[in-house]
């Protein structure tokens, strides 16, 4: 080995050893630092920490933020907060500690009513992970007599406390639950997901609907205070306090009057109504019937009531507006006509002779029109006005599946486009691939025919149909469908404005010839105002023009050669009545979808309800405007 190399090696080793000394120096410094810290804590500050540890008289209490309020578009309160008193126990402070719980419960039972369920739920809460010295709720919504009785006996019951808290209250309750959702007590599963620090004083969380989607905004941020307590846990002194940040207030597009009317119109029926403002995409009304009261869920619904709701054949808990999947039936015909014309497959002048049925092959299965004997010569305009099935069997046969599903998708079918209703479902927009996967069968021409009249595998939710009505009314212009209008008075155009994910939304529908929109519009106006329009009775005697399309969805496949008689079929097998439309026809302020389950035809069951809501939102608004004008003139 050459000397020079050995030399550098030796140099390197000595340099390395020098660095080891540096490392040792670092280690010693840090260890001295750690030991000094320990000496500081364990010797210097010993007295302080020993006291804090001994009696734990200083406690940190979390303060729940006040939940944000929810308003309708005109500022009417939809969800507020009210005071409620609950009975709580601090297990560590009871006589006999945690082992004394049974005695205390027995004693309390003599003062206020406590049933088995209360005790069962109390035990469950007790076993959830929690901070020591934090209260565990036993009963909610104590009435004044109960409060008085507990207060009188409180000296005998250390660790038992009456805790006032603000709980959610829905002043308009029943008709609104399917639009707003509700809050309920936090359960184990939610507890695991929530930020435990921020929710350490919160007992409720949004379970459904708007309350669930905007939970973060409505909840706010927790505050806390350090308090000094006596041995019984009574607060003697607040040492420091950090105020909670209240939740933000939310304004919805929902119009309380329209919503209430929609709910009233649905009373005694099964069905749903969704109304959307075509200028903004805001949901004006979202009603589903039968419904239920939301307030009972806030403080804990009784088991019997809950079972009654769950067990009902009418499924009141089911949100038909967002989750009900119905065959849209003839309400898709305007879109089918657009598909035919715009794809260039069907001539704009295409017409056929309607004998009352359509056949794929001579002598094959008869695809029936709703009118026996047929409509005679039918062109596109007439096919919409009179809802001629034969016409759509024919054009569906010519087009095949792909153009139809492509255009239906552009109008929002088969996808969730509402931004802030987490329960919404996308229903089914059947493609060939869909059928292969879900039905293990290939696509038959008959499937296209059924799709052409909005039956077969196709299904849509009332929210999707109202969206389709909006896009039709807007001549293809899309807006984000949403409940929220503003948050803390800041307008929200899209939920991404407040950091949420926008749902995927089709781009605006651009037709090759924009005059096609006018063709469709004029046909849909004639549905309501034409001599033979299927909705003419609902469109009659009105001071404004409206546009719409009725639909009647078969619940039961009607056998070949059997005549159809609604009366003989059990009520549950009667047709669903559907309607989509908007008003005023030229400058729409409301687009709507109405579905009445087993209500019979769309023109008799659904369209009249829409008319009432049109009147309310247009004439109601006009009369209001007039009144305002009058007031200004007076001033």
């Amino acid at each position, binding site marked *: 080995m050459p000397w020079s190399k050995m030399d550098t090696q030796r140099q*390197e*080793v000595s*340099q*390395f*050893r020098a*660095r*080891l000394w540096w*490392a*040792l120096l670092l*280690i010693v410094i*840090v*260890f001295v*630092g*750690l*030991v000094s*810290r*320990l*000496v500081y*804590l*364990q*010797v210097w*500050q*010993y007295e*302080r*920490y*020993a006291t*804090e*540890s*001994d009696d*734990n008289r200083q406690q*940190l209490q*979390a303060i729940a933020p006040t939940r944000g309020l929810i308003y309708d578009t005109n500022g009417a309160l939809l969800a507020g907060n009210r005071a409620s008193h609950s009975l709580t126990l601090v297990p560590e402070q009871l006589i006999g500690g945690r082992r004394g719980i049974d005695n205390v419960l027995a004693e309390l039972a003599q003062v206020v009513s406590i049933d088995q369920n209360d005790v069962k739920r109390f035990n469950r809460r007790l076993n959830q992970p929690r*901070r*020591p010295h934090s209260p565990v709720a036993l009963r909610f919504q104590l009435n004044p007599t109960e409060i008085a009785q507990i207060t009188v006996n409180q000296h005998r019951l250390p660790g038992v406390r009456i805790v006032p808290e603000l709980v959610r209250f829905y002043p308009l309750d029943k008709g609104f639950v399917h639009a707003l959702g509700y809050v309920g007590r936090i359960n184990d599963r939610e507890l695991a997901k929530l*930020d*435990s*620090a*921020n929710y*350490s004083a919160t007992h409720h969380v949004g379970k459904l609907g708007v309350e669930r989607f905007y939970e973060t905004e409505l909840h706010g941020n*927790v505050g*806390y205070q350090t308090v000094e307590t006596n041995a019984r846990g009574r607060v003697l002194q607040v040492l420091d306090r950090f105020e909670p940040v209240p939740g933000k207030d939310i304004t919805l597009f929902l119009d309380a009057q329209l919503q209430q009317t929609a709910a009233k119109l649905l009373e005694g029926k099964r069905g749903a109504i969704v109304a959307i403002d075509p200028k903004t995409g805001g949901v004006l009304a979202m009603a589903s019937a039968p419904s239920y009261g939301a307030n009972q869920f806030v403080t804990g619904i009784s088991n019997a009531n809950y079972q009654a709701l769950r067990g009902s054949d009418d499924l009141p808990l089911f949100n038909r507006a967002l989750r009900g999947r119905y065959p849209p039936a003839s309400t898709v015909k305007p879109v089918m006509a657009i598909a035919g014309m715009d794809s260039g497959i069907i001539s704009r002048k295409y017409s056929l002779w309607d004998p009352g049925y359509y056949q794929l092959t001579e002598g094959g299965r008869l695809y029936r029109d709703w009118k026996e004997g047929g409509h005679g010569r039918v062109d596109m305009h007439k096919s919409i006005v009179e809802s001629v099935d034969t016409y759509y069997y024919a054009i569906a046969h010519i087009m095949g599946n792909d153009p139809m599903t492509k255009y239906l998708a552009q109008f929002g079918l088969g996808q969730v486009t509402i931004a802030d209703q987490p329960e919404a479902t996308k229903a089914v927009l059947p493609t060939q691939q869909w059928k292969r996967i879900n039905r293990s069968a290939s696509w038959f021409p008959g499937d296209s025919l059924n799709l052409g009249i909005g039956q077969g595998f196709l299904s849509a939710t009332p929210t999707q149909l109202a969206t389709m009505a909006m896009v039709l009314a807007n001549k293809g212009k899309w807006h984000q469908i949403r409940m929220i209008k503003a948050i803390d008075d800041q307008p929200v155009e899209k939920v991404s404005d407040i950091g949420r994910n926008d749902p995927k939304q089709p781009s605006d529908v651009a037709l090759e010839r924009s005059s096609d929109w006018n063709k469709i519009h004029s046909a849909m106006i004639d549905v309501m105002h034409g001599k033979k329009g299927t909705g003419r009775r609902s469109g009659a005697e009105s001071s404004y023009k409206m546009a719409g399309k009725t639909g009647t969805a078969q619940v039961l496949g009607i056998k070949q050669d059997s005549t159809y008689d609604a009366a003989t079929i059990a009520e549950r097998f009667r047709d669903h009545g559907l309607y989509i439309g908007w008003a005023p026809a030229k400058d729409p302020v409301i687009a709507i979808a109405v579905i009445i389950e087993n209500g019979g035809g769309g023109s008799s069951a659904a369209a009249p309800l829409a008319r009432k809501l049109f009147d309310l939102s247009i004439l109601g608004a006009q009369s209001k405007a007039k009144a305002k004008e009058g007031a200004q003139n007076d001033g």
Partner: protein
Amino acid sequence: MADFQRWAPDAQKHLKQGPGLWVKLRLDPFLLVLLLAIMSFGLLVLYSGSGSSEAAVQKQLIRYGLALLGMVIITQINLRNVQRWIPLFYIIGLLLLLAVLLFGVGAKGAQRWLEIPGLPRFQPSEVMKLLVPLTLSWYLSSRPRPPHLIHVLVAVVLVTLPVLLIAKQPDLGTALLIGSSGAFVIFFAGLLWRYLIAAIAIGAAGLPLLWTGMREYQKQRVITFLDPESDPLGAGWNIIQSKIAIGSGGIDGKGWLQGTQSHLDFLPETHTDFIVAVLAEEFGLMGVCLLLTLYFLVLIRGLMIAGAATHPFDRMLAASLTLTFFVYVAVNIGMVTGLLPVVGVPLPLVSYGGTAAVTLMASLGILMSIHARRPQRT
């Protein structure tokens, strides 16, 4: 020769005896005794911290047994001879970390585990704790020393990749340990002081720049991270309670199983990252100082082994592993006593948990292996 023997009479005796038992086993009795002492002390505290759970102690005993076995196996390997496989393992480790981000499983918003059918669930980041110092030692030992700037930069990249992947899981504690293990290798490779000072200066200058570039909520997170007591219900709760536990322990402690803070459930995570608070509460300042002394002796032994090693690969590796062990101790105790922000770093050989114990013992095994292969002075 005769002269020499006269001058060094013991030398011949040594030659006659041949290698002793410890040398044959390639174990270092000093380190072994120290770590057995730490583990026994740890089990004592663990029994108390886990709420007198014999099951927890038993489970930990089994883990220690397996980890010891793993350590003995590793000491039999001369890592210098398998050096050429290191880069391959490093790349596999990186891919596994990527896999964790893509398909990993975990709890509480952190994705750290990988479940491969047929294999037990494991944490690739733990393996990286060994692979990063190994890779860097391999890379820098075959380059000229002190390393050129370009080699330093490559080494920095080799460290930064896994650190970023792990920080993204997020597992800041492990990212910190791995980052520092890499930094130590570079330091012991003879990084010129001027580079070191420049790096520190750039880092210090970059911080304010980073700060101004951050969004408001990110700033808020950093503030709670640095000052957990501003969030007393969340991150601060642990710190406040552990300080009460430590402080109330005093000089001689409340006695074994007598800690009120830990036994009344005020103190969270008593058997994992915060176990030293239980120790401090029950055994007082004297107990913690005893443990710190044991750790200090481990570190001294580690530095001695590094100093005695002749091959650059062995030297850098031994020194880096020793210093990483030091970072474990310093960060864990610093965080539990409220000096450092809370990051998940366990107390070595004491905290409950299997994977960390295995990696730590493996790194001690590497130290012993290096020691066993030092040139014998005869």
